[in-house]
């Protein structure tokens, strides 16, 4: 059988967690079949990433070039296209991250290989892989098959396959390959990274987060919950829709594009629990969710749940905290 390729993702001199999550899952797939696990590293010179990856993979194919210090969809696509054409891997895994979303579909068209995105499960026992995905914002799951092809592309959701601390390590071979000399200049060039999470409060330091989501309904209602957070001695945070509407600044946002938080208690008011949000509260001690929708995905990850109007519950909390 062929290889399972894992495309390493790195930023600012560090391999990103998604890389190890994919390697961990790929190793599991290799164990139940006879695939070889190959990590692909496209990076600037002298990163040390290859050694780090070699303990997770059977081999590491390294493409080093100054132009690869930062991610470039065009460069990645061209190099991966060629190595996939030569090595014919059975399966290629890419992170379902902002960068992976910019790369995988383009690579799929370029190689002619079918793509399934944002997968949370893969079976690859015999022949074609079958993947599991979430649809309708996690309210349903789907099992997806591919049209027969010479290889398959899959993007993997962050946090879907967390390696345990004692994940089995090996010592893979590091193979350096030349970056093709005839690559055309990328059509997009990196300028800078901008930190968008900094602000006057730091939600990552709070013991109690009182967090609001889409269920808040109107901008005016933010004040009510801010008042509740104050009365509870907690810090106000929120999910993405609240920031998208400009009702709170970005430094309040919990989730993959905002902050990961670890309060003792996370009180989620009117938050449905999209996976991008849930990923940000994995480190919370206790999660309490209040939502009108009994089927909201947040109840699947919360420790305690209340199916009710968040304003009624907020009002009752306030009364007891001031009156009691």
């Amino acid at each position: 059988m062929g290889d399972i390729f894992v495309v390493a993702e790195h930023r600012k001199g560090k391999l990103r967690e998604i890389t190890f999550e994919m390697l961990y899952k790929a190793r599991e797939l290799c164990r139940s079949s006879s695939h070889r696990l190959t990590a692909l590293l496209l990076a600037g010179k002298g990163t040390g990433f290859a050694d780090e990856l070699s303990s997770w993979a059977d081999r590491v194919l390294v493409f080093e070039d100054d132009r690869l210090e930062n991610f470039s969809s065009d460069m990645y696509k061209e190099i991966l296209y060629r190595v996939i054409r030569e090595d014919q891997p059975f399966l290629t895994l890419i992170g379902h991250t902002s960068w992976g979303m910019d790369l995988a579909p383009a690579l799929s068209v370029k190689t002619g290989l079918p793509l399934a995105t944002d997968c949370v499960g893969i079976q690859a026992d015999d022949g074609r892989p079958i993947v599991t995905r979430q649809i309708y914002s996690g309210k349903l799951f789907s099992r997806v098959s591919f049209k027969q092809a010479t290889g398959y592309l899959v993007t993997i959701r962050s946090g879907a396959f967390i390696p345990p601390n004692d994940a089995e390590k090996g010592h893979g071979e590091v193979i350096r390959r030349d970056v093709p000399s005839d690559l055309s200049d990328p059509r997009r060039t990196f300028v800078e990274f901008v930190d968008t999470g900094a602000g006057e409060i730091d939600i990552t330091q709070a013991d109690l987060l009182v967090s609001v989501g889409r269920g808040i309904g109107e901008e005016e209602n933010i004040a009510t919950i801010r008042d509740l957070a104050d009365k509870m001695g907690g810090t106000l945070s929120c999910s993405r829709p609240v920031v998208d509407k400009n009702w709170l600044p970005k430094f309040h946002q919990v989730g993959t594009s905002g902050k990961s938080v670890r309060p003792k208690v996370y009180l989620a008011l009117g938050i449905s629990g999209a996976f991008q949000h849930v990923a940000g509260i994995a480190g919370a001690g206790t999660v309490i969710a209040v939502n009108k929708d009994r089927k909201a995905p947040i109840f699947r990850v919360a420790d305690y749940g209340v199916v009710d109007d968040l304003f009624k519950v907020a009002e009752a909390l306030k009364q007891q905290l001031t009156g009691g």
Partner: protein
Amino acid sequence: MNIIVCIKRVPMTQEVDLEIDANGRGVKTDALAYVINDWDNYCIEEAVRLQESLGGSVTAITIGGEDDEEVLRRALAMGADRAVRIEPGTRELDGFVISKILAKAIQGMACDLVLTGVQADDDNNGSVGILLAEQLGLSHAAVVTGVEPAGATATVRVELEGGMDEVSTIRLPSLLTIQTGINEPRYVSIMGIRKAGKKELTVIPLSDMGLSEDDLTPRTRIEEVFLPPETEGAEMIEGDAASVASELIRIIKEKGVNL
């Protein structure tokens, strides 16, 4: 600046119990209300803003039945100049086929920018935009939260994970997948939608487009849709608001938070 926006109508699923349909591969849609895909709403707004400041035209495209024209009329009311609906009939479409259809439709149009949403709220694939970019041979960026064209290039801001944005320069023409929050979409009144009824809306049957059977063959297939596996889930606290509140206060204190 000529801009094409690719948009979609999706079912509203917040606070709705979804039911799996008879063949087990989709959901029952008859009882669902439909809206414009949230990402696409931002996408139209961004296109209209660029057109307002730089001139040119905005064309909105959707693939769907007559009911889906609702999102095109909405786009026209927001300021798009013309709209195109591609009628797919009863064909099963995946992201690949959709990108093939859109590519064929866009190929002959002069454009500087193609905008799509990052993803659709129903299938959550997040792949059509960049598939389309590669079909059209356009430069591209995904998860865009800012775009400023300047001559033959544009400065784009891409949202990464962990409170970090990436700024880059991209050569035009280009395809960008637009993230929610990039702007504040304007309000659309019923009156506005009615007025926009005068604008041009073209319907193209898929069968007239000259796509090959291979182009129209899905690369992926949903075999089965199922409810999320049972988890232990939350311990539910029942009762009136007052008793719920006192129980919550007890729990929060027990977990070591001083109230």
